[in-house]
């Protein structure tokens, strides 16, 4: 079949359909094509670098799947504590089940909260280690998103839409910036969720397939040996070498005979695959890291080992030039009941690894140009569900950023006095997306891809860069 004609003919970053050059680019970009740096003629005219100077070169997204509660972590509400058990003094969100809200009562946080550092940002006792980094964080307390259910909100967070099939944020970044390391993918998703849209959340949709995320692990679990798919160590290198020689000779002859560009692309991509197969294991292996670094992430301790190894892998990938790295917890934050033990467990599992990651990035000078983003698909209601639970709350919740280009020690935006609705300096998920792209040097309005007769972008027709959080 043809390569996508509509797409390639119209999009200025995209190499023209199956030119020889294009084939080579597509091949080189297999694990992170360089839509921007790739100097195909159209691209050169359109954009020869980022739209503006980048403040961050890469993103590490710490995804708390299920939705952590804002009022129990970074957005404490004295009035909520004071009116614990009372009726909600205003209408609950429209689209919640009537069954969950007709008797809605406020529920104060079971945890104490205090201010930390010079900035005096609030953090609850659930995050004792992250609390030490409050002066590094930029806490957005007025997040809003779309989708009352996980499936929609998770897709909204990752792809900018709660119901359509669209490329994921990492795929857009890969498409816009390519990889810094030709032998590694531009977008790696570590242990992404299998459900709630699953691969859609790291998929490329209509962008060239090369931009989809490469996964390691699944459902919040990294597994014993982190490895890319179908990458295996040769059982008999000498034998493989002989086979490879024959394959190369045949391919070379076929190329000379046909002069067909995709054949050459395929040959290039095979060579790249073999290079990757040699190099990736070193990046993926955590065994060579010194003991004190492993300890920093909580590796080797039962509670923190899994997420610790994920975070350490994220740092290694960041160091090696991967553009966009997502680190997902399991689908564990959804505390409709058992808030107390559930959130305590969840926080204990990630607190030290996240703090370790921030420390490690900082000591290596990587935090300067690495944007760390923390958050879930939504927050949780300040009203009780059952006696010890909270429902979904996309109306107002907290996410935080750290590093590349954001103002540290800042609390931005507000929810109402109960922590339910965002009411001041609201930051919609679209705005966050626009801001992340902005920090990477990309204008979200100009990173577009034409598909089915329309120019698409991550932020659809929405999104405003949140200037107030820029350093």
């Amino acid at each position: 079949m043809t390569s996508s004609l509509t797409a390639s003919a119209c999009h200025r970053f995209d190499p023209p359909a199956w030119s020889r050059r294009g084939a080579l680019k597509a091949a080189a970009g297999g694990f992170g094509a360089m839509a921007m740096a790739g100097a195909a003629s159209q691209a050169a005219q359109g954009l020869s670098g980022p739209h503006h100077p980048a403040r961050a070169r890469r993103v590490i997204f710490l995804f708390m799947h299920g939705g952590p509660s804002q009022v129990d972590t970074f957005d404490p509400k004295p009035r909520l504590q004071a009116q614990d058990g009372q009726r909600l003094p205003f209408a609950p969100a429209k689209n919640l089940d009537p069954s969950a809200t007709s008797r809605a009562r406020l529920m104060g946080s079971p945890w104490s909260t205090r201010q930390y550092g010079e900035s005096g940002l609030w953090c609850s006792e659930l995050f004792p280690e992250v609390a030490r980094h409050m002066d590094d964080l930029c806490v957005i307390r007025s997040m809003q998103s779309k989708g009352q259910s996980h499936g929609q909100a998770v897709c909204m967070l990752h792809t900018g839409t709660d119901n359509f099939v669209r490329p994921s944020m990492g795929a857009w970044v890969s498409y816009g910036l390519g990889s810094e390391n030709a032998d590694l993918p531009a977008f790696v998703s570590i242990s992404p969720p299998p459900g709630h849209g699953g691969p859609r959340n790291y998929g490329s949709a209509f962008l060239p397939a090369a931009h989809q995320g490469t996964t390691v692990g699944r459902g919040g679990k990294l597994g014993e040996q982190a490895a890319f798919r179908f990458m295996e160590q040769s059982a008999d290198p000498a034998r493989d070498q002989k086979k490879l020689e024959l394959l190369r000779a045949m391919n070379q002859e076929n190329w000379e005979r046909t002069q067909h560009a995709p054949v050459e692309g395929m040959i290039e991509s095979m060579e790249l695959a073999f290079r990757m197969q040699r190099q990736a294991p070193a990046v993926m292996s955590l065994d060579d890291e010194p003991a004190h670094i492993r300890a920093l992430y909580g590796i080797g301790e039962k509670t923190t080992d899994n997420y610790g190894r994920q975070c350490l892998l994220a740092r290694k990938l960041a160091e090696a030039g991967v553009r966009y790295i997502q680190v997902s917890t399991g689908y564990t934050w959804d505390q409709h009941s058992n808030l107390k033990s559930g959130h305590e467990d969840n926080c204990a599992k990630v607190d030290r690894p996240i703090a370790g990651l921030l420390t490690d990035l900082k000591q290596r000078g990587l935090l300067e140009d690495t944007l760390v983003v923390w958050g879930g698909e939504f927050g949780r209601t300040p009203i009780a569900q059952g006696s010890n639970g909270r429902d979904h709350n996309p109306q107002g919740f907290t996410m935080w950023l750290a590093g590349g280009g954001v103002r540290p020690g800042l609390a931005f935006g507000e929810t109402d006095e109960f922590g339910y609705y965002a009411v001041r300096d609201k930051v919609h998920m679209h705005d966050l997306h626009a801001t992340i792209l902005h920090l990477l040097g990309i204008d979200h309005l100009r990173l577009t891809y034409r598909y089915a007769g329309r120019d698409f972008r991550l932020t659809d027709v929405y999104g405003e860069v949140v200037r107030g959080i820029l350093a």
Partner: protein
Amino acid sequence: MAYRHAFLIALLIAGLAQSCVVSAAEDGVAFFEKEVRPLLVRQCYECHSEESGKQKGGLLLDRRAGWERGGDAGSAVIPGEVEASLLIHSVRYLDEELQMPPKSRLTDAEVAVLERWVAMGAPDPRDGSIKDVRAGKSIDLKEARKGWAFRPLQNESPPEVEGVAWCRTPVDAFIKARLETEGGEPAADAEARTLVRRLHFDLNGLPPTRQEVQAFVAAARRDLDAAIQGEVDQLLARRAFGETWGRHWLDVVRYADSNGGDRNNTFYQAWRYRNYVIAAFNEDRSYYDLVREQVAGDLLPARDDASRRRQLIGATFLSLGPKMLTERDKEKLRLDVADEQIDTLGRAFLGLTLGCARCHDHKFDPIRQEDYYALAGIFRSTQVVMGTRNGCVNVASWVERALPQPEPEASALAAKLERLELIMRLKVEKDFMKKSGGKMTLDDLPLAGVLIDDEEAELVGAWRESSLSPNRLGARYLHDDRQGKGSKRAIFSASLPESGVYEVRLAYSSNAQRSKVVPVTVEAWREVKTVRLDQTRKPEIGGLFQSIGRFEFEKGGRVNVIVETTGTEGGYVIVDGVQFVAEKDLEREAKALAMMDGGDPVFRMSSGDLAKALTVEIRELRDAELAMAPRDAEDVGDCHLRVRGEVGQLGPLVRRNFLEVLHEGPPPEIPAGQSGRLQLAEWLAAPENALLDRVIVNRVWSHLFGRGLVASVDNFGALGTAPSHPELLDFLAQRFRAQGGSIKRLVRELALSRAYRVAAQADGPLVQADPENAWFGRREMRRLSAEEMRDAVLAMSGQLSDEVGKGTANESGDDLDKPFLFDQDRLRTVYLPVARNNMAPELELFDAANPDMVTGARTTTTVPTQALYLWNAAFLREQSAELARLAYATPDPMAWLYETVLGRAPTPAEAARAQAMLRALGGDEGALADLAHVLTISTEFLFLN
């Protein structure tokens, strides 16, 4: 609470009105200048003023005329009517969908200023006319109908050409004429062994065997035309034809065996549609019948059971899309499903991106937003999603229909299906109802509706609890003890799942001591009504509930029922609960009440037991004779246009219709109670709709020539590609129509053309002059598809099963989230599960169609993971060993491998090289397997020329 809030505001307004009524107009203006104008400038002008150049939502707030006319949602301010003014509504931040200013809430004082201003009658001295920045171009349908895609089929006949000798079929004349005009010379015919490989893959998706290659090469030497004709006829007659060409259609209709979206539930019945498509291509059924069946198979009259069966299965097309099953806003879900259907239907059948017109007129094509909602009315009137899949009220299920079969099985299945739907409904309704503990007499009622027990009421004054009467809702009820008459009040505030008319009922236990004139006030959306209830009379519904009347409520709006004691001296006033039952459920309730008398236990099941029963019923129906077909909804009708596509922003009601650019007459007459799908299907397939023919013949062309006459096969709109040979396109479309929509005849005609035979060219004047190969003077090489690659490997190793696959996904259980690998399967790939969001790597790596989207032309990507797969996958190594085993039994295994895999003998140099490798690797069957592996992953095998 909502009641109190409204009450306070009413007081406030009353007070204001009193103080303002005497004020002079100038005071109003002064107030505006001092308080309102600065506020508007500060908070609103950024997006709603001429100065900023922005008129978001169509609204200007820098002149009186601006708020008078208002924006897309209507007038922003109604002078004097605080509650009815959208401006006030939006700044109060009570409606999540309309909050202004969008980023930050105004202070309470600022809101009060605006409220006061509106209450004063909105004095506003600012003049200036409305400058409508939105008045842009309007769509000119008349002009649009002249375009190449939209005009009637043109009468075309093959042009005169100089090179008549080159031509074999009428098609060739069109191709040759263009080449002659451009000064291009067609490439020579491809070699016979290349042609036979091309034909076998293009028509059957499989490689020719060694014997087939040899036979064809010999026949071609005698008479090439006859050899091709013989081969084509043979290949068209094989089942592999439908398995290959059916797959092309499955790409277009985004076929999958699971939902994808947010819940990857298994579509247990989807496979029937897949096999229906394959059979349709093999039986060469008329394309027009296929169109009718896919759009309205469930509604078409049927000749017999076999047709009925086929038609129902065909309609699966509409249900196959990915859905957000957990969407809590059921109206949004319904419109999203309709949107997916409209978008798919548009691209698949018409090559039009109709989905673009959901929020506004299409920016490029002659499709107005009204056109979209005219179709949306038809599809909103079609039911696909319903009930609950897993017992959670937030996870919707989908409609399945019983296939015809002999009695008594037919009745038994119908009853089982009906019961499943009943359980789903009961489960949903039970969960919407509030249980407050204690013995729920409500279990005797089939439908819960929305229930509010007295424990949730806001009470004013002293009420006493009682449980004396066993006939009650919940653990207790309240009475006023005949004290403090007129000072007590119980307020029930509800939040209803959707807007609509509800019957409001009050629960009480009756006896002679009760009051006969209990005032009950219902505050509905647009009305407030008080009735006097006689509580000495036994309630009519289940002995517990008495209807107060029917009222219209708005979702998220005011829903209050207030029981008072004024004027009830002498009798007890009882307050036990309030029930809201949607009007559309009342008839069902009556039926269910009758069924309860028949003794079905489901009516008495708890919510938990219902969920268990649901799981059992779904599992039992997994392999039943069902089709995943939709049906017309109970509440069919026209659909409101949605301003900016927002579900909650109603525009005018749009009459159901076909696409006006393609349909000049009046809208269809749709009989009462019908969706209009039947009429739509007939219209789509009718000769009036020439676009249908153009799109399908172009699809067929593209699969044989590597590119469409219209290169953008799914987009015939302005942003698509203009046809390279418009006359040929119309010629083929006309023929196709005249021949009754026969795909096989079309394929045959194209495959027999000289143009189909041309060789690939690496370089030369034709490549230079026509790099895109839009003139079709040469062949463009293509990589084998994912299916071709896997099927070919199995066919060569003798492992390919010739079975027809059935519900292959069903063994995976309720969802298709577990990783797939097709290692152990031997069926043709088309029969293996297509899991949305979770495609088997064999499919996904080599660019199988993404089943979330209409895919008329697959893209070809080249990524290193493909190479890693080819090199490391156990499947290929195992199959290479099988292939080597077959080769080993032949006299010259090495040459046999070349002939089988590449369709040719090795050159002497290749033979020497291969032998050298075999020797170096031990010269045994294992070494042969390594050679087979190398040949199978070589670019020569992977690319077809």
